[in-house]
C-alpha cells in the first residue's frame, strides 16, 4: 500500500503570501484596507495573463522546433538564436494583417465568436495554482469552475462557424461542438474521481492532498486510468491531433476558422495554445502533484537543517514550486506536440465512438472503483 498522505495544517508549510505582505506594506503607507486590496487585485491577474501569453510564445516555438525535429528538418533558425523570436514574428504578422470580414457574413457574430472562444480559456487560469498562495483566487468550486467555463467554448465555435456563412465553417463548428460535448463527460468523471479522493474541489486542496511523500503520493499512481482518460479528453477538448477533426485540412479547409484572418484568427490561435498550456497545467495539478517537488521540500529543508518558515527558505520553496509546475506542464506539452506530429487523425465516427462507447464506461467504472477503494482503504485513498 502507498504511504498515506500526511496532510496536516502544521506539516504543510504556509508558503509565501504575497498578498498579505503587499497589503500590509500599502497599509503602512496610510492607505485603507479596501483600497490596498483594490490596488492588489489586478496585479496577479496581469501577471498570469502575461505568463499565459509568454507560455503561448514558448509553445509556438516548441511546436515549430519539435515538428521540425520529428520530420528531420531544422525549423526556424534565422529569427533570433535557434529561431526563438519566430513566434514574435508570427504574432506581429497576424497583428498587421488586414482584418477581413466576408461580404455575406454576419459581422457581429463573426467578431464575437473568437472572443467567446478566448475569454473562458483565460478566465480558467483563475484556479491554476503555482504554490500554496500563488494563485489568483482559491475559489471553493476550483476545478469545477474550469469544467463549466470550458463548456462555454463550443458556443463561440458554433457562432463563428455560423457567422462565416461558409459550409466548411459551419461543419467545423458543428463538429467542434459535438466533440466538446462528447469529451466533457468522461473528463468531468475523471476529475470527479480525484475530487472524491481529496474531498475538495479546490485546486490547492487537491495538490495539498498529494504532498506528504513526494513523488509516491502523486495521484497518477492512485488514478492511472483516470490520468489516461483525462489526458485523452484534454487533447480532444483542445482539438489537438489526433482529435483535430473540427479543422481537418483535407476535409474542411480549416473548419470554423476558414474565413478568419488577422487578429481574429490570432484569437483562435492564441485560444487553442493557451488551452493546451492550461490543460497541461491542470493535468500536473490533478495527477502530478502540482507544485510539489519529487522529494518533499520539507524533508530537504530538515535535512539541510533549515527552518521551513525562514524567509529565504520560503522564497526558494516558492520558486521551486513555480519551476516544478511549469516543468511538469511543459513536459506534457512536449508529449502533446510529439503526439500531434506522429499519429494520424481519427475519423469522426471513430472519435465519437471512442468518447461515448469506450471512455465514458471506463470513466464510470473508474469512479466506482475509486469510491470502493476509498471505503476499503481510507488511509491511501483520502478517506
Amino acid at each position, binding site marked *: 500500500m502507498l504511504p498515506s498522505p500526511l496532510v496536516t495544517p502544521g506539516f504543510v508549510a504556509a508558503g509565501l503570501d504575497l498578498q498579505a505582505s503587499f497589503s500590509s506594506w500599502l497599509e503602512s503607507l496610510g492607505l485603507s484596507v479596501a483600497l490596498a486590496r483594490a490596488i492588489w487585485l489586478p496585479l496577479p491577474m496581469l501577471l498570469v495573463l502575461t505568463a499565459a501569453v509568454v507560455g503561448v510564445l514558448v509553445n509556438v516555438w516548441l511546436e515549430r522546433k519539435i515538428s521540425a525535429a520529428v520530420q528531420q528538418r531544422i525549423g526556424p533558425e534565422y529569427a533570433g538564436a535557434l529561431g526563438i523570436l519566430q513566434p514574435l514574428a508570427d504574432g506581429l504578422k497576424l497583428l498587421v494583417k488586414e482584418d477581413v470580414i466576408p461580404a455575406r457574413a454576419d459581422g457581429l*457574430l463573426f467578431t464575437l465568436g473568437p472572443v467567446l472562444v478566448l475569454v473562458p480559456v483565460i478566465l480558467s487560469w483563475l484556479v491554476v495554482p503555482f504554490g500554496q498562495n500563488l494563485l489568483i483566487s482559491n475559489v471553493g468550486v476550483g476545478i*469545477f469552475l474550469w469544467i*463549466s467555463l470550458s463548456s*462555454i467554448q463550443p458556443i463561440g465555435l*458554433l457562432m463563428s462557424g455560423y457567422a462565416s456563412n461558409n459550409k466548411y465553417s459551419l461543419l467545423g463548428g458543428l463538429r467542434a*461542438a459535438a466533440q466538446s460535448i462528447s469529451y*466533457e463527460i468522461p473528463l468531468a468523471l475523471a476529475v470527479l474521481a480525484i475530487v472524491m479522493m481529496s474531498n475538495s474541489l479546490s485546486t490547492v486542496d487537491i495538490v495539498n492532498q498529494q504532498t506528504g511523500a513526494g513523488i509516491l503520493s502523486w495521484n497518477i499512481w492512485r488514478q492511472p486510468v483516470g490520468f489516461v482518460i483525462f489526458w485523452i479528453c484534454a487533447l480532444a477538448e483542445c482539438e489537438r491531433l489526433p482529435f483535430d477533426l473540427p479543422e481537418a485540412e483535407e476535409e474542411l479547409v480549416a473548419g470554423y476558422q476558414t474565413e478568419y484572418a488577422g487578429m481574429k484568427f490570432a484569437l483562435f490561435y492564441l485560444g487553442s495554445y493557451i488551452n493546451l498550456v492550461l490543460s497541461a497545467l491542470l493535468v500536473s495539478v490533478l495527477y502530478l502533484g502540482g507544485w510539489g517537488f519529487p522529494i518533499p521540500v520539507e524533508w530537504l529543508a530538515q535535512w539541510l537543517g533549515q527552518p521551513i518558515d525562514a524567509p529565504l527558505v520560503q522564497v526558494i520553496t516558492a520558486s521551486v514550486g513555480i519551476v516544478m509546475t511549469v516543468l511538469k506542464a511543459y513536459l506534457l506539452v512536449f508529449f502533446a506536440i510529439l503526439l500531434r506530429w506522429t499519429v494520424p487523425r481519427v475519423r*469522426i465516427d471513430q472519435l465519437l465512438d471512442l468518447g461515448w462507447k469506450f471512455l465514458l464506461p471506463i470513466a464510470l467504472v473508474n469512479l466506482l472503483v475509486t469510491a470502493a477503494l476509498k471505503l476499503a482503504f481510507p488511509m491511501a485513498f483520502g478517506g
Partner: protein
Amino acid sequence: MTIATTTEQICFLILAATIVLGSLGVVLLSNIVYSAFLLGGVFLAVAGIYLLLNASFVAAAQVLVYVGAVNVLILFAIMLVNKKESLSAIPSLLLRRVLSGAVCLGLFTLLLRVAFTTAWPLPGPQPIGEEATLRIGEHFFSDYLLPFELASVLLLMAMIGAIVLARRDVYASDVITGEPADQGLIEKARTPLLINRSETSTTL
C-alpha cells in the same frame, strides 16, 4: 459607501440590464439564431447574479448545464435543421400578438405584486460561502433525496426515448406512426459510415 459595495451595485445593474434586455431580445427577435445566442447570454448573466449572491457552486452549475449543455444543444438543433422555407402568413397575427402580450403583461403585474407585497426578511440569510457545496450535497442525500432521484428518473426516461427515436432501424414498423419502416433507411443505418464511398457521402 465602500469600494466593494459600489462594485457590487454596478455589477448588479449591468447583469440585471443584460438579463432584461437579453430576454426581451430572445422573445422579440425574428432571427432564431440570434435568439438562441442571446439566450446563452441571459443564462450567463443569471450565473453572474448567482455569483453576486455568494452561490459560486450554483453559478458554475448554471453555466455548465444551461450554457454548456442546453444552449449548445438548442444551437445544434437549429443549425442541423437550417432549412430555408418560406413561412405562410399566419391569419390574424396582430390579434395573437396582442393577446399573448396581454397574458405576459398580466403575469408581469402578478409577479410585481408578489414582489412588493411579500414581507421579505431583510437582511436575508447569511451567505455560507464555500461551505455551500457541502450543504447542497448533504441536502441531496437527505431531505431532498426524492426530488433528486425523480429528476434522474426523468432524465433516464428522456434518454431512453431519444434512443428509441434515433434507432428506428431495429424496429420493423415506425415507432411514432406505426407504418412499416422505410427499408432504405434501415439499410442506410446498418451500413457503416465511409465504407462505400460511392454510395454514402455522409461525413459529419
